[in-house]
């Protein structure tokens, strides 16, 4: 008895396997409107096994589709499903763009690696166009015999037997899915066509979702960029307002503070002159008073720089000689530091405000010196970037470096990491402002423990 059941089981299995692989011969026809698909005299068990296989396949396909990452991945998943389920020769997915009214190859399987890589664009005067115009599947046994399709551009990759299914979501055409077989003895069966249609229906929902998701992501990205631009603009405006306020304050304050400072410095000088050299304590005290007055003067000077960093007196100058002048002025501060020059000779003159540019370079050299309290190396490069018509000045030190957090605020007025009395936090913001006025660029990169590089880009023409 058991053996008998086993034999029956094997027999049904064999019948099913044959029916799945074989295309039954049939007249060419559209599906489903173009006449009924011929009955194949299916037995109940055969049907049951078929439906279970189909259900199982669609279930797995669904699972896979849900986890698709992005539009392209979803298209590949759909194409792959149709291709693998029917074990056919070629499967192609074309995306429809309603604006340009064209199809673009989105995914192809069984088409040779070379062909599938090249972009393929097809107009609506094609079989694909015919399918999406009719909004229904087309099932054909032999394309070459379909006279009613003759006036259409028969896409070169379409083979003898094929199913073409529009991929539509809520009236919106997303694309078309073709499955083709050259070697098939006949057309695809109704069941096979149903599976391809199911794949297209389920696929359409996912494609639409993915498309909306990608659009939302794109919109979010656009919003983020717009926000960043606004933020940057606002920061610049705030910075300008700060500069303006500081500038107004500076001119007023400079006069009122520097007059008494001048008196202190002159007074201390006089007292130093009349104090006998033996009175060391008195002389030390006077020296401290003078140093403090000069420190206060330094702060006033920084404020003055703010008030004046708005107008330029441009004259053609040699950047190399400005750099040399500045190095000469700060040589005392750089005496423990190895200075390396990588200067390109014969550079064209650049229209700059010499005094202001000197202020920038001196400030940068002093910062480098402060970052290398023991010793270190300062490299100064100056070269022409012909393609962009700019001269680049790089000032690189091997100092303590600047943390990423501090780097973000490095150009903020009054931001300083130097100790009290050692910096006003105005140097770099004034310097950047001066370079901006020259329509140049000042950039800083740094690594903690390795050093800092400041790059100043100056345009050769005004």
């Amino acid at each position, binding site marked *: 008895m058991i053996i008998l059941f086993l034999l029956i089981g094997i027999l049904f299995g064999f019948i099913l396997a044959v029916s799945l692989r074989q295309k039954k011969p049939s007249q060419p026809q559209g599906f489903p409107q173009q006449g009924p698909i011929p009955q194949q005299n299916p037995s109940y068990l055969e049907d049951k096994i078929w439906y279970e296989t189909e259900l199982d396949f669609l279930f797995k396909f669904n699972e896979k589709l849900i986890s698709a990452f992005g539009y392209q991945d979803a298209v590949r998943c759909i194409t792959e499903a149709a291709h693998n389920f029917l074990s056919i020769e070629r499967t192609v997915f074309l995306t429809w763009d309603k604006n340009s009214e064209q199809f673009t190859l989105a995914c192809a399987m069984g088409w040779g690696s070379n062909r599938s890589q090249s972009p393929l664009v097809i107009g609506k005067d094609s079989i694909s166009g015919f399918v999406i115009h009719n909004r229904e599947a087309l099932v054909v046994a032999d394309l070459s015999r379909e006279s009613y399709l003759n006036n259409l551009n028969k896409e070169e990759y379409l083979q003898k037997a094929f199913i073409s299914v529009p991929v539509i979501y809520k009236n919106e055409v997303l694309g078309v899915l073709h499955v083709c077989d050259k070697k098939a003895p006949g057309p695809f069966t109704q069941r096979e066509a149903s599976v391809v249609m199911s794949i297209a229906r389920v696929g359409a929902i996912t494609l639409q979702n993915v498309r909306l998701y990608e659009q939302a992501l794109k919109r979010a990205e656009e919003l983020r960029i717009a926000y960043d631009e606004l933020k940057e603009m606002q920061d610049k405006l705030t910075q300008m307002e700060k500069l303006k306020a500081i500038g107004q304050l500076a001119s007023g304050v400079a006069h009122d*503070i*520097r007059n008494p400072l*001048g*008196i202190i*410095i*002159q*007074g201390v*000088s*006089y007292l130093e002159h009349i104090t006998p050299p033996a009175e060391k304590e008195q002389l030390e005290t006077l020296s401290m008073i003078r140093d403090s007055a000069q420190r206060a003067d330094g702060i006033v000077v920084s404020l003055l720089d703010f008030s004046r960093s708005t107008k330029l007196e441009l004259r053609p100058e040699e950047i190399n000689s400005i750099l040399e002048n500045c190095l000469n002025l700060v040589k005392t501060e750089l005496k423990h530091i190895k200075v390396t020059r990588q200067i390109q000779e014969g550079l064209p003159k650049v229209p700059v405000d010499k005094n202001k540019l000197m202020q920038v370079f001196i400030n940068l050299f002093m910062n480098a010196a402060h970052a290398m309290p023991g010793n270190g190396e300062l490299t100064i490069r100056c070269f022409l970037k012909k393609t962009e018509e700019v001269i680049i000045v790089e000032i690189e030190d091997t100092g303590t470096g600047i943390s990423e957090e501090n780097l973000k605020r490095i150009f903020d007025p009054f931001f300083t990491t130097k100790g009290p009395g050692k910096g006003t936090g105005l140097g770099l913001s004034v310097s950047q402002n001066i370079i901006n006025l020259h329509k140049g660029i000042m950039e800083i990169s740094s690594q903690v423990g390795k050093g800092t590089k400041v790059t100043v880009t100056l345009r050769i023409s005004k």
Partner: protein
Amino acid sequence: MGKKKILIIDDEENFCNLVKKNVEKTNEFEVYTATNGDDGIKLIKELKPDLILLDIIMPGLDGGDVVSLIRSDNSIKNTPIVFLTSLVRKEEDGYQAGFTKGYSLLAKTVTVRELIACIKQNVI
């Protein structure tokens, strides 16, 4: 040959007096002071100084007015002038704009040594 005559015109009386003391200690100069533009002009005509140290921002006649008056009077128009001001950097004696163009500029917080060097350089 007698000492060179320096006139300082500045509304800060204490500043004038201390500059006088510091410059005179060199024994090379005689320093006179005026604390406003009107007094300054009178002294220039009277003393015919070899150099004027002139403040820019002053009540009444300011530094610019004083320069105009000097330059319009043939008897004193060639007197050298050094501006002493709070509105420049120490390094900026090259900063030249407006009526200060062509003149030396010194920051008020200048050291005595720098001040004397500048006087020697500009005095007739």
